[in-house]
C-alpha cells in the first residue's frame, strides 16, 4: 500500500504546486467539459480550436503592457476572443460567407497578429509560455480566476440551456416563435472564450481547447442523455488532469501535453469500447437475435 501511496498521493501531499494544479484541473474540467459538449452538439467542434487561436493577440498585448501578469493577459485574451467572435458573426450576418469560413478567416488574422506581436517584443520563452502554459505554475490568483470562470460557466449554462439547445435542434422554429437565437449564441461564445482564457494559463492557448473538446467528444460515446454526457465529460477531463499531472511528476514530462494526450487515450479507448457509440459494442449489437 505504501507503494501506491507514493505513486498516487504523495506528490499532492508533499507539494503545494501539485495540489493547486489538481484543483485547477478540477475547476477547468467543470467549466470546459459542459461548454465543449455544447460545442459538439451545435456542430461547432472546430470552433473551439479557432477561438483558442483568436485569443492569442489579446494575451500578447496584455503581456506587452504588463509583463507576465495574469489579469492583463486574461482580459486581453478575452477581449480578443470576443472581438473575433463578434466580427465573424457580423460578417456572416451581412454577407454570404458561412459562419465556419468566417471564423476561420478572422481567427487566422488574429493568430498571425498575435505571433507578430510576441515575436517582435518578447523572447522565445515568453511565446512558449503563452502557447503551452504551465499547469504547475498555477498560483492562487490563477486558481481563483479558473474557479470563478467555472462557477460562472455552470450558472450561465444552466440559465441559457433551454434556448441554446432548442436553437441547435430547430433554428427555423425558434426564429418563427421569435426567440432571440443570436443573443444566446453570443452569450455561449463568450463562455467558450472565457473557458479558453481560464485554460491557457494552465495549459497554454494551444492545449486549452484539448481539455474542452476531447472529453466532450468522448462523452457522446458513453451516455444517452445530455446530463449523462456532461457528467462523463467532466469526469474524463478531471481524470485526464489527475493522471496527466502524475505522469508529468513521475516521468518529468510537460504537464499540458501529458494531460491532453491522456484525454486522447481515453477517447481512443472509448472509440473501441464505449457502450453507446463504441465500435465493438455496436458490432456486438448488430448481431441481433432471431426473435
Amino acid at each position: 500500500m505504501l507503494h501506491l501511496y507514493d505513486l498516487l498521493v504523495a506528490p499532492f501531499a508533499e507539494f503545494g504546486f501539485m495540489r493547486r494544479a489538481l484543483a485547477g484541473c478540477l475547476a477547468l474540467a467543470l467549466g470546459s467539459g459542459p461548454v465543449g459538449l455544447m460545442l459538439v452538439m451545435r456542430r461547432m467542434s472546430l470552433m473551439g480550436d479557432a477561438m483558442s487561436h483568436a485569443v492569442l493577440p489579446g494575451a500578447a498585448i496584455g503581456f506587452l503592457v504588463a509583463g507576465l501578469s495574469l489579469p492583463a493577459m486574461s482580459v486581453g485574451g478575452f477581449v480578443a476572443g470576443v472581438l473575433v467572435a463578434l466580427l465573424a458573426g457580423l460578417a456572416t450576418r451581412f454577407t454570404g460567407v458561412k459562419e465556419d469560413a468566417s471564423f476561420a478567416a478572422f481567427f487566422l488574422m488574429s493568430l498571425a497578429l498575435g505571433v507578430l506581436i510576441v515575436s517582435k517584443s518578447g523572447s522565445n520563452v515568453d511565446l512558449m509560455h503563452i502557447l503551452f502554459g504551465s499547469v504547475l505554475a498555477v498560483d492562487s490568483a490563477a486558481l481563483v480566476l479558473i474557479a470563478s470562470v467555472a462557477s460562472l460557466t455552470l450558472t450561465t449554462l444552466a440559465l441559457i440551456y433551454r434556448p441554446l439547445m432548442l436553437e441547435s435542434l430547430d433554428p427555423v422554429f425558434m426564429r418563427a416563435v421569435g426567440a432571440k437565437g443570436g443573443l444566446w449564441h453570443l452569450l455561449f461564445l463568450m463562455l467558450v472564450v472565457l473557458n479558453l482564457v481560464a485554460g491557457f494559463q494552465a495549459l497554454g492557448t494551444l492545449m486549452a481547447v484539448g481539455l474542452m473538446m476531447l472529453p466532450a467528444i468522448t462523452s457522446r460515446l458513453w451516455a444517452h442523455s445530455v446530463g449523462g454526457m456532461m457528467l462523463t465529460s467532466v469526469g474524463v477531463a478531471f481524470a485526464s488532469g489527475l493522471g496527466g499531472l502524475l505522469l508529468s511528476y513521475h516521468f518529468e514530462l510537460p504537464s499540458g501535453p501529458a494531460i491532453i494526450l491522456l484525454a486522447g487515450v481515453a477517447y481512443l479507448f472509448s472509440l473501441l469500447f464505449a457502450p453507446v457509440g463504441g465500435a465493438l459494442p455496436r458490432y456486438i449489437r448488430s448481431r441481433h437475435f432471431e426473435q
Partner: protein
Amino acid sequence: MSVVLENLTVSYQRHPAVHHVSGEFADGEATAIFGPNGAGKSTLLKAMVGALRPDSGRAVMSHRRADIAYLPQQSEIDRSLPITVEDLVLSGLWHRSGAFGGVGRDGRMRVAEALATVGLSEFARRPIAALSSGQFQRVLFARILVQDARLILLDEPFNAVDAKTTYDLLALVRRWRAEGRTVIAVLHDYEQVHAYFPYTLLMAREVVAWGKTETVLTDANLRRAVERAAHWQDRAPVCRVDGEAA
C-alpha cells in the same frame, strides 16, 4: 383574423423565388400551396414566419406571434441531438415559458394529451434519434397541438411519411379546419389537396391561380405553372415592376 400578402418578393442572390405575390388566405379554412419544385412555396412560408427577409412587400397577419404555429421541413431539424420526445413537444409552450419560465403541470398535461392524440404516448421518454421519419412527424404535429395556434403553417408535412401516418395527420388537419383554425400547407400530392384543402394557391414564383381548389387545379393552370417554373435565366434583367404603385 386575416393573412394577407402584399406584393411580396423574396430573392436568393437577386433571383426572386417569390415574385410580387399578393392575395389573401381564406380565414378559418385550409389552403394548400401547390406548384413545381423551385416554385418558392417553402420560401413563402419562411418569409411569412419571419425566418427570411423579403426584398419588398410584406406578409400581414392579424395574429399575434403566439397564435402562429409553424412546421419546418424535417431536413431543417438536427435529429441526432440527445433530446427526448417530451422535451421537443414541450418547446411548443415557448410562448408561455420563454427561455426561463416553467411549463407547469397543465403544460405537461397538454403535452401528454397531444402525444396521445398522435398515438405516441409510449414514446415520451424516448430520444428523438430513435424515431422513424413518420413517428418524428407525428411528434412535430404534437408540438403544433400544444401550441394551440389559430394559424398553422406546414412545410411539406407528408414528405418521407408512410400512408397510414399521412392519413392520421390529415385527420388532424381536418379537425383544425373544423375548429376554425387557418391551415396553410405546402403540398406535393394532388389527391391530398383535392380531398382535404378547399382552397389552393398555385404558384410558380408568381401566383398562377388562387382560390377554390376545383377552379385552381385545372389542367391549363397546372401547365402554365410548369412552364413558368422552367423560365430561369442567369442574366435576367432587373425587375422594373414598381412594388409600391402596384
